């Protein structure tokens, strides 16, 4: 029998006997491997072989969750009891319901051309050390270098009391780097994050060394040639990294139904979009922002969510209006709709909540050159460093890392620390054209308590905004 099956099935059966109205259980085995190369020194190699079972029950109109890494029937019996007890103790006045969903029996896995498990750690270290060495040979001072390579192999078995039985396998690869370039007592810093669902072949898909070297060179150029960014209203051409973070922060997060309903109010916050906000205008008609778990090789790829619901593309903003919320079964029932498969958990020991997967601005048909050609005077911001947004997802800030002045369609000198500080509608309403150069970066999206930092992709093509205030 496949690993975890007997315990998960036992948990479902036992919870039913204990009176649960609904039960779901997840077995997960995760095999993470992670190292940091800091200034050329490998501090430590971290490897894991994590596994356990989590059980969530709906009983007495309330939810109870419990988890253990003791893979015995006795321990599972105990956590079912814990979950039932917790649900009963909730004494809710309003009953939690789950939206009715199709039961699924399926196996799915992400293919690996070269299995992550078959690549010796020496080879992985060599790959990153080679990039690090190249950075040190650039001819200017890269004062601090930090590279992190992470991989994980995630095997899950999900079952619920309605008859769903789903087994899945997701191998994931990620590189994070952080660089500090120093020149004449001044410094420029950057970070980038690339992710991949699949095998070791992902390392080639990124062109990592070229990208890192280009980034370091642009940092040096900013330090030696960069001028103060102009202040005032002007056009902005924002590169894929900027479009990606904006789509995640001011489109994805405000359309998470649990935030809209207040379940995250104390931590990640609420949303400027109210529960009846579907159709509300937030951007121009060329703005289409989607969240899609089924994008091949994107780091948050999945075919079924952690409530056993089939994944599909969701239009968060459609032609500038709120299209749909991201739902799990609880929020869908509360809003009288169906789940769109957005329930995810970091591991077996945490409940599945509403999450983004791969969120991006849908590409248009302009080349970057065409977008720039239409700019008399403005800024071309290719990437950002500092960013944040308020907890209702209305006031966002993106501070430029690599940015240039554009005059009559031509890229001129670099500028430093260009600040975009705009409301969500002001940002998206100013978009008049969308490029076709769709790119993704990876991110860790934080939410919930205990915090669940989850794999997510942030993406977009280059977009052009007209007449926005920059400083």
């Amino acid at each position, binding site marked *: 029998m496949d690993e975890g099956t007997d315990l998960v099935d036992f948990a479902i059966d036992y919870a039913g006997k204990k009176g649960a109205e609904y039960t779901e259980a997840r077995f997960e085995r995760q095999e993470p491997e992670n190292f940091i190369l*800091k200034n050329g020194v*490998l501090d430590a190699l971290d490897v894991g072989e994590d596994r356990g079972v989590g059980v969530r029950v709906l009983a007495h109109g309330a939810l109870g969750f419990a988890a253990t890494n003791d893979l015995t029937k006795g321990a599972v019996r105990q*956590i079912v009891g*814990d979950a039932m007890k917790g649900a009963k103790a909730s004494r809710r006045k309003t009953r939690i319901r789950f939206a009715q969903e199709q039961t699924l029996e399926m196996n799915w896995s992400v293919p690996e051309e070269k299995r992550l498990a078959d690549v010796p750690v020496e080879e992985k270290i060599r790959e990153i050390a080679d990039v690090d060495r190249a950075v040190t040979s650039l001819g200017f001072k890269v004062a601090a270098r930090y590279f992190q390579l992470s991989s994980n192999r995630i095997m899950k078995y999900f079952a619920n009391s309605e008859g769903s039985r789903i087994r899945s396998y997701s191998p994931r690869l990620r590189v994070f780097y952080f660089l500090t370039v120093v020149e004449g007592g001044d410094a420029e810093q950057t970070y980038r994050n690339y992710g991949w669902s699949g095998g070791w072949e992902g390392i080639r898909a990124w062109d990592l060394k070229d990208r890192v070297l280009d980034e370091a060179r642009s940092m040096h150029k900013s330090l030696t040639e960069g001028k103060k960014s102009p202040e005032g209203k002007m056009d902005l051409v924002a590169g894929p990294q900027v479009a990606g973070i904006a789509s995640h922060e001011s489109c994805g997060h405000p359309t998470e139904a649990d935030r809209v*309903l*207040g379940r995250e*109010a104390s931590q990640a916050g609420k949303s400027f979009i109210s529960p009846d906000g579907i159709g509300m205008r937030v951007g121009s008609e060329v703005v289409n922002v989607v969240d899609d778990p089924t994008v091949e090789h994107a780091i948050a790829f999945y075919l079924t969510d952690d409530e056993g619901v089939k994944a599909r593309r969701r239009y968060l903003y459609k032609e500038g209006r709120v299209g749909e919320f991201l739902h799990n079964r609880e929020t869908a029932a509360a809003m009288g709709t169906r789940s769109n498969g957005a329930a995810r958990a970091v591991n077996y020991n945490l409940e599945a909540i509403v999450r983004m997967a791969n969120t991006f601005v849908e590409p248009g048909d302009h080349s970057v050159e065409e977008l720039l050609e239409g700019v008399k005077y403005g800024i071309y911001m290719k990437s950002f460093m500092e960013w944040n947004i308020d907890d209702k997802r209305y*006031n966002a800030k993106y501070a430029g890392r690599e940015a240039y002045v554009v005059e009559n369609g031509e890229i001129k000198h670099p500028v430093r620390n260009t600040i975009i500080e705009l409301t969500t509608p002001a940002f998206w309403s100013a978009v008049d054209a969308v490029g076709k150069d769709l790119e993704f970066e990876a991110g860790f999206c934080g939410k919930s*308590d205990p915090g669940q930092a989850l794999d997510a992709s942030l993406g977009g093509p280059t977009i052009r905004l007209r007449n926005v205030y920059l400083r």
Partner: protein
Amino acid sequence: MEDLASRIVQKALSLGCQDAVADVVTNRSYQIRFARNEAVISNRWREKTASVFFVYENRVLTSDIKDLTKVDEAVERLVRIAKGSQQNPDYAGIAKGPFKYARSRPDPKVLALDEGGRYVEAAVGGALDEGAKECAGSFWKYDVEHFLATSNGASAHDHRASLYLSIRALVSLESSGHGIACATKLSRFEPEKAGHKAGRIAALARNPKPGKAGRYMVVFDPLIFGSLADQVGGRLSAWTVMAGLSPFGKKIGKRVASPAVTMIEDGSTDSIGHKRFDAEGVPTRRNTLIQKGVLKTYLHNTSTAKKFKTRTTGNAGLVFPEPHAIFVKPGDWTRDEIFSEVKDGLWLTNTWYTRYQSYLSGDLSTIPRDGIFHIRKGEVVESWKDIRVTDNLLRMTKSVVALSNKTEQMMWWGEVSVPNFVPYALIKDVGITRSAE
């Protein structure tokens, strides 16, 4: 469990490791999350893990062993993997034991607590009494037990238990307040007080007006000052300094804060961050980080201490030094005196999403949330919204004008990651920006 930790260490040594640490951790924590004034889920964990640190010919490996029924096989596998890793020339060993530890035991009443619904109800009730309409938050009973053994003779046990409640009260989407209750003793746990504070701020924050950009004298409530203190504490890890992630590099002995600021790191004093020992088994102790505005030390483990030609401060994580708990020494101002000092300024009660443009310079921004108040002549004249603190960490710490004479214990989701005791703070010329029209 003590035997298990020792067995893991001995097994690693028998396989050729030069150093080994095993920390067998039993987690029996329990949580209630609540929203819209009632529980949304109850979570409980029953987990046992061995966190291990093995060094084979200066190749450092860390892992969590989850299957404690097959420990020998796991250690063999991990040492095999370590052999394929790269040597760390900066590795300088682990601290030499054995050590003596201060006595410590958790409050039996906290350990015996099996249900937290009444504390949620007390907090929510407190907030509703003040005029709040909607409350959300979390109640935690932390119950975590550690058995640690090292190859350098440390052998230690620590049973850590505490209570925590975080509540956000809302009158409307833009009128909210936050309250925190935390304690290691049941008798000192005050969730209702946290609820009242959250509700009071939320009620006062009714009908907020868009704020105005500028530089202001600002009263920092303990929760947001705790966030600032958390930034300082985290950036003082020697590891962050080495990685280019700190504005405190090369600043030992230099002024990094106003003379009003003395900051202590101390895992040995009572707090919900209390620990008897660090990840190398070194007893926790009191470390003065900033003395009257002057930086005295970074936080170290054995390896970073050697790099900086000093001694460990008892702050080892398995790889990175980290603070256990931060204490900002109270000042001699009353809370009322601090508010009275503000002729035309702000009172900020909470923040989130602190991000840096440059970790080296300390240029950052952070977004106040919950009550934001305009103060004139010491009195609240208006509730504000939609502003951002855009400033520099060192400029703000150097601009502390006054600290109140009482501290409160803080810890909060994301922003105050390490428990701290902080007073009200008055900081001058704080940069405030807002979204463009």
